[in-house]
């Protein structure tokens, strides 16, 4: 496996890493940058637990080869809270009881951010569609949907 230097913006900071470009972005984040907030539920693009923002779009980071993020901006769950204070989406998830085991939560929250960036006033159906690639086995999605609608309300206040 031949390594390459990959430069990209990670959580707002310019970074550079010497790595096998075929390695998945998820493993790059988790293993090389120690950002373990993005979870691996399947490694095959089927669960959404690894969702991060790639140039503001929600992607399954387990499917993205590290080489592909060169020159892009990647945002992970770790970047959302500022000075130890959770952001409005994270707060809404807690307020609405949208978190049980929490394994899906980082991915869900990233998908919510991607949605709100594109559509700040989503309706329930748009929320459901936006998170349809994020599996949650615990909650039945209802409180997650409510949390994202509440986030939108906060955003528009």
């Amino acid at each position, binding site marked *: 496996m031949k390594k390459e230097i990959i430069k990209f913006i990670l959580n707002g900071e310019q970074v550079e890493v010497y790595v096998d470009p075929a390695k998945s972005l998820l493993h790059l984040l988790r293993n090389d940058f120690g950002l373990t907030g993005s979870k691996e539920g399947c490694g095959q693009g089927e669960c959404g637990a690894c969702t991060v923002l790639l140039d503001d779009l929600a992607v399954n980071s387990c499917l993205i080869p590290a080489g592909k993020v060169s020159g892009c901006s990647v945002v992970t769950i770790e970047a959302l809270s500022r000075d130890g204070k959770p952001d409005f989406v994270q707060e809404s998830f807690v307020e609405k009881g949208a978190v049980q085991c*929490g394994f899906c939560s980082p991915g869900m929250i990233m998908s919510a951010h991607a949605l709100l960036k594109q559509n700040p006033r989503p309706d329930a159906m748009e929320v459901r569609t936006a998170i349809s690639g994020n599996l949650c086995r615990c909650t039945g999605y209802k409180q997650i949907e409510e949390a994202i609608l509440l986030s939108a309300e906060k955003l528009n206040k």
Partner: protein
Amino acid sequence: MPIITENITREKKTETDFQSPEVWTKVTGKAVYGNDFKLPGMLYGKILRSPHPHARIKKINLGSVEAMPGVYASLTGAELPERPYGIVFDDELPLAAELVRYIGDEVAAVAAVDNETASKAVEAINVDYEMLPAVFSPREALKPDAPQLHEKFKDNLAWERNLLRGDSDKAFREADVIVENTFTIPSVHSTYLEPTVCVAADDPYNGLIIHTAVQSPDAVRVIIAKALELPLSKVRIVGPVMGGGFGGRVYGNLKLYMIASLLAIKTGRPVKMQLTREEEFLVGRPMIAAEMHLKMGFKNDGTILAREADIVTDNGAYSAQAPWVSKTLSERNDSVYHIPNIKTRVRLAYTNKVPTGQYRAYGNQAANFATESLLDMGAVKLGIDPLKLRLKNCVKTGDTTVHGLKIKSCALAECLKAAAEEIGWYDRKKGYGYGISAAIHASGSLVFDKNFRGAAALARLELDGRISIFSGEQDYGQGAHATFTLIASRVLGISPEMITVYSRDTLSSPHSIGALGNRQTTIGGKAVQMAAKRLRELIVLTAADMLEDPVVMEKGTLRSASDRIVELPLVAYHYHSLTCGLSLIGEGRYVPEPSEYDETGYGNIAVTYSFAAHGAVVEVDKTTGAITVHKIVAAHDSGKIINQISAIGQVFGGTTQGLGMSCYEGYLFNKGEVANASLADYRIPTSLDVPDITPIFIENEDPEGPYGAKGLGEIVQIPVLGAVANAVADAAGVRVTDLPITAEKVYQALSGWECE
């Protein structure tokens, strides 16, 4: 929107909403799950699995695997003493010694610097197999000429039970109406989102420490110590955060833990092992599959006279808890209604397939599908409204059921009426199908260990006035710790923010049977209540001693008769210096009345029982068979609700899982090979599949549970299956008796076209 009923007057209450502060670590990505955990010098382990359903290992050729760069050790069954272990029967080995019995059976393992190296090394191992004939159908397996899996279990019969109550032959002779049918339920996987993972570390000082999130760490520790012949006090389990359990992780993955431990001992380095999602499906212990032939007899007025059952459950290659699950599956449902005469035969058969375990409602959900479907078939034949039929026969407070369960509190009739009303049962719209179904579930099961029925907890006053609760009951997302916090907060009269519950280390937590049998709230919660009560007494005594005056405790403050005030930290310090370092600790234990049952299993098997009735509204497209589930109403008697936000979450989540089992999920096998071992092929409900779910709580106070509460987490899944099946049958005019109920099967039933 949830409807919360207080003695059936509807009002919403919010003062009971509380979440463990751990939730903040989860939304910020800081919570440490098993795979996030690392130790210095840690290696990674991988397992070589059998590609054959049944074979004899002739030779394992390790070749130069151990010499490969980055490989630290390999391990085969031949190196290990042949000491079988198990949960009910000792029928498994950490690594196969001679025989492999299913596709996925553990054959050899490797520890290496990283996962990739370990995977490559495992692939380089060469195994010579001698193929053996295999058997995949449990009914076939029970035939005398079938291939044999285990020497000790003749005719592949792992377990059998014949149960007779009353005289069912006579009752069927007297019955006016008889219905019978066969129902089949495939194996289903809990599909917790986090694949199972552990890190095992061993050194002479600490002994073996396994970092893994498992529902019953104490039970796992005992099994592992015994199987690996290690002193029990030198095996410790420390739990990272658990990414879901649902009963599928009561014992976690014992083989994974043992292999990681053996590799750690062999290499002297910590070893991490994680199942891939595919491996989860291959070896992750799904719930047993079942084929249930049921027969029910009624009087013309709808009185149920008798129920007969011939049930075969599919064990897969090894047994785990399958006998217990088969037992619950075959009988718990009999106690929803008055059924005076019962005849049941249940046989658990070994097959060359994925070994099984359990899932959330312990087989009761599978039985609900069969029984409640049959009940509706009875209603049609009798010409009686299905709701009326249920109301006529359902159990109530004060009853002792056919199997001897003592019903101390029961609002089942109210649940049925509430669910029916909420789905519009009395005003059914044309073009839609309506279904209802009822359930009972043990709340605080006493049968897992006759000598260890209850639970213990410790409540410690810290020097800063905060309270630490130590309990052996795990929280894997279902909110047990928030409930415990609320219980302790009520007893002590201090805010929940001042209380922290710890459970994840077998070294510091009291021993517990673990999170199964809906023990958490009823038994574990009660122990916390007792511990907090004792601590409160000790605090008051100590403060009285300090102030030399009787005191009362109010809102975390102690006030003497002469109006002097002392705060909790001072009380803590006082005791601390008095004893030169001890803390005030309230020990709490809850030891329920022994459950007395005879050799036929007749008797009361749980502290109390939860009840529920669900109603479903569906639409079926008669040209394609496509099903749309519009609404599920989940009416529950779980006693008093202690934590509303988590109770509602349990109902949404458990109902959705029930819907998954009803319409989507199930293992598919092709000659013993799992044909849908991925989340793309084994489909669980997504956000687009979930209907409108309405939780209703009928809050009757239970005399046993802490603050009148009963279990909820398991029962939520049960009545969904019957309700959806009945609603689909109502809409389609034909009945699918084989789970999951898919469009294809409805279409086949509609067109009268039979296919395999």
